C-alpha cells in the first residue's frame, strides 16, 4: 500500500503541488492524470524520493519512503533515451546492478524479458542501432528488471505501435494482478480508462477529481443518449425536453434536460420513428477530463 498524504511541494514561491492525497492498493492500477504542467512529474519525483516534499508524507508499506526503497521502485520517465553507444545487454545489466541485483539474477531476468519482448536477436546490438519502439522496450525492461513492488510509468505507451501497446498492457495487467502497485501517468485517456481502477486528476497542482473510474463516471454522467432509427427524425430537435442534439440521417446524439429520463424520451419517440438502437451514453474519461479542467481553469 502506498499512501500519499497532504503532499505539498514549493519551489521558491511557486507551489507545484498543493495538498494532494491519494492511496494505492494492491491489484488496482492508479492513474495520475492532468494537463501539462499540472504537477504530475513533481508528484512522481516526490514519490520516487528524488525530491523532498515541502510538507506531507509518502508512505510505502507504512514506512516513510527513503533510500531503502530504491531497490523496490521501478521508474519509466516520459522522455526516452538510453546510452546510445552502449550494447543492449550491457545497459540492462547496468540498471540491474544499480538495483543491487547480483550478476547471476540480473542475467537471468534480462534474458527472460528479452525473450518475452521478442528482442533476442538484438542483444548484442548498440542501442542506437535499434528502432524507436525497440529502444522503448529496452527502457521498459530497465524499469522492471528488478521485479519492483512499486512501478511508476510516465506515458508508457507513447511511441509503441498497437501490437506492442497491447503487449505492454498485458504485462502491466499481470503485474497489477500479482499485487504490484502501479502508478500510470498518461494523457491517453482511453488507456487510463481501460487499465486504471482509480484515478487522480490534478490541475495547477491541486486535486480536481479523484476516485474509482466507475464512481467518477457516474458522478459526471449527463443525460446523454444515442439513438439509431429509420424514418424522419427532424422533429427531435424541437422537442421541449431536448437540450441539444447532434443529428444525422439515421443517427442522433441527444442531451436531455436534467429533469427528464432517457426512458421518457424513448416513450415519446417510439411511435414516430422506428428505433434500431438506443443507448445511454456514459461520458468518456476524455470528456470528463476536458470538462473538468475547463471548468477548473475558468474558476480562477
Amino acid at each position, binding site marked *: 500500500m502506498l499512501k500519499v498524504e497532504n503532499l505539498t511541494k514549493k519551489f521558491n514561491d511557486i507551489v507545484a503541488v498543493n495538498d494532494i492525497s491519494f492511496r494505492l492498493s494492491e491489484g488496482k492500477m492508479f492513474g495520475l492524470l492532468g494537463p501539462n504542467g499540472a504537477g504530475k512529474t513533481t508528484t512522481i*519525483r516526490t514519490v*520516487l*524520493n*528524488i*525530491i523532498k516534499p515541502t510538507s506531507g508524507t509518502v508512505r510505502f508499506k507504512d514506512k516513510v519512503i527513503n*533510500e531503502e526503497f*530504491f*531497490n523496490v*521502485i521501478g*521508474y519509466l*520517465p*516520459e*522522455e*526516452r*533515451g*538510453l*546510452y546510445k*553507444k*552502449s550494447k543492449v545487454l*550491457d545497459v540492462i545489466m*547496468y*540498471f540491474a*546492478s*544499480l*538495483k*543491487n541485483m547480483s550478476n547471476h539474477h540480473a542475467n537471468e531476468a534480462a534474458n527472460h524479458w528479452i525473450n518475452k519482448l521478442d528482442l533476442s536477436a538484438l542483444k548484442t546490438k548498440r542501442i542506437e542501432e535499434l528502432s524507436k519502439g525497440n529502444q522503448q522496450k529496452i527502457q521498459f525492461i*530497465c*524499469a522492471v528488471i528488478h521485479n519492483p513492488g512499486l512501478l511508476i510509468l510516465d506515458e508508457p505507451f507513447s511511441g509503441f505501435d498497437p501490437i506492442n501497446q497491447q503487449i505492454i498492457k498485458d504485462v502491466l495487467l499481470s503485474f497489477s494482478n500479482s499485487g504490484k502497485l502501479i502508478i500510470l501517468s498518461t494523457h491517453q485517456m482511453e488507456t487510463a480508462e481501460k487499465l486504471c481502477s482509480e484515478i487522480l486528476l490534478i490541475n495547477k497542482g491541486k486535486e480536481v477529481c479523484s476516485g474509482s473510474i466507475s464512481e467518477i463516471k457516474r458522478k459526471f454522467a449527463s443525460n446523454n443518449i444515442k439513438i439509431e432509427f429509420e424514418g424522419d427524425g427532424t422533429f427531435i430537435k424541437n422537442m421541449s425536453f431536448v437540450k441539444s442534439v447532434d443529428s444525422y440521417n439515421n443517427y442522433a446524439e441527444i442531451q436531455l434536460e436534467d429533469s427528464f429520463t432517457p426512458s421518457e424520451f424513448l416513450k415519446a419517440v417510439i411511435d414516430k420513428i422506428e428505433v434500431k438502437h438506443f443507448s445511454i451514453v456514459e461520458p468518456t474519461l476524455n470528456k470528463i477530463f476536458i470538462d473538468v479542467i475547463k471548468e477548473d481553469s475558468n474558476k480562477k
Partner: protein
Amino acid sequence: MTILKTLAVAKWEYFEKIKTKAFIISMVITPLIIIAFAVLPSMLSQQEDESTKIIGIIDSSQNYFQELKNELTKYKFKNDQPNFVLQNLFDSSLKFEDLKKKADKKVFDGKIQGYILILNPRTDSLKFEYRSKSIGSFSDLNKLENELNNIRIKNYLTSAGLSQNIKEIVNNNSELAQIIIEEDGKESSSDFMVVFFSSFIFIILLMMMVIYSGQMLVRSLVEEKANRLIEILISSCTPEDLLTGKILGLSLLGLTQLFIWAMIGITLAGAAVIPYTAFENILPMLIYFILGFLLYTTIFVGVGSIVSTEQEAQQVTSYLSLIMMLPVVIAVPAIQNPDTMLVKILSFFPLTTPSIMLLRFNISEISIPEIFLTISILILSIVLMIYISSKIFRIGILSYGKRPSLKEISRWIKEK
C-alpha cells in the same frame, strides 16, 4: 549497500568510456602531440644546414678579413667540410657606395650568401652589419658575431700594448654550470630537458587529461539530463553515490591513461629520447597528479550538472579549461624562478598546488613538512569540493532550462 552502487556506477563509467574510439585515439595522440611539441623545435633549430656558406666581407681597414678567415676555419662539418668560406670584397679602387652595390648584386646573383659590412672600423662608432636577402641562421650569426668581437677586442688590446697572455685570458669565456645540491650530499647538474620532461610534461598531461575527461563527463551528464536517464539513476541511488561513482570511474580511466603513457615514456626513455632521471621522483609526483586530477574532476562535475544543453556545456567546459590552463602558463615563469615567494604561495593554493609541486620537485628540494602540508590542503579541498559539488549536483541535475544564477547556486549549497 551504497558502496555497491557507487562501484556499479564507477564500473559502468570506466568500461563504457574506455571502449569509445575517442578515448583510444586520445590516448595515442596526446603523447605524440606532446613529444612533437617537446622535441621538434629543438630538433629543427639544431638541425644543421650541411652546405658551406660563402660570405663576403667589406672591411676598409683590412684588419678583420685575415683574422676572421683564420678563426672561421675552426667551424667544420663532420666530414671536415668548412662551414664558412670568407671572400674579401674590398677593392681600394672603388668608392664605398659602389662596393656596396657590387656586393648587393653578388648576393642577388646567389654568388654569396651575404656579406659583412664593417663601418667606421678604426673609430669608436664601429658597427658590424650582416647584409643578406633573408634572415640568416641564428647559430651562424652568433658565430660570426662572436668572432668579430673577439678580433675587435684583440685588436684593441694589441694597440694598447698588452701581452699575448692577457689577450688570451680576456678571450677565454667561462660558463656558469648549474649544480643542484641536496642535504644528503647528493649533487646533480640540472638539464633543461630533464626539468622539461619530468615536470612540464606532467603538468601538460595532467591538464590535458583533466580537460579531456572533464569534457567527456560534462557531455555524458548533459546527455543523461536530456533523456532523463538521470532520473532513473537517482531513483536507484543517491546523487552522492552517483557523483562519487562517476568521479571514481573517471579517475580510474585517468590512471589507465597515465599508466599507458608512462609505458610509452619508459619505452622512449629506453630509446634515450627521454632521460631516465625524469622518472626519479615519480612516486610523490604521482600523488600530486592523482589528487590534482580528483580535485579538477570534482569541480567539473559540480559545474557540469548545472548546464542542460550541449552548447552550454561547451561554453562552460571551455571556460573551465581556460582556468585549468592557468597552472600551465604559471609553470613557465615558475620553472625559471622556482624559489620566489609567489611560487611558494601558489604551492599552497589548491588549484595550483598540483602543477607547481610537480614542477618544484625537479627543480629544487622540497621539505617534508611542505609536502605533507600541501597534500593535506589538497585532500581537504577535494573533500570540501565533493561536498559542494554534490549539493549543486543534487539540484542541478533536476533543473532544466535557464541556467541558475550564482545566488541560486549558493542557496543550493546551503540547502540541507
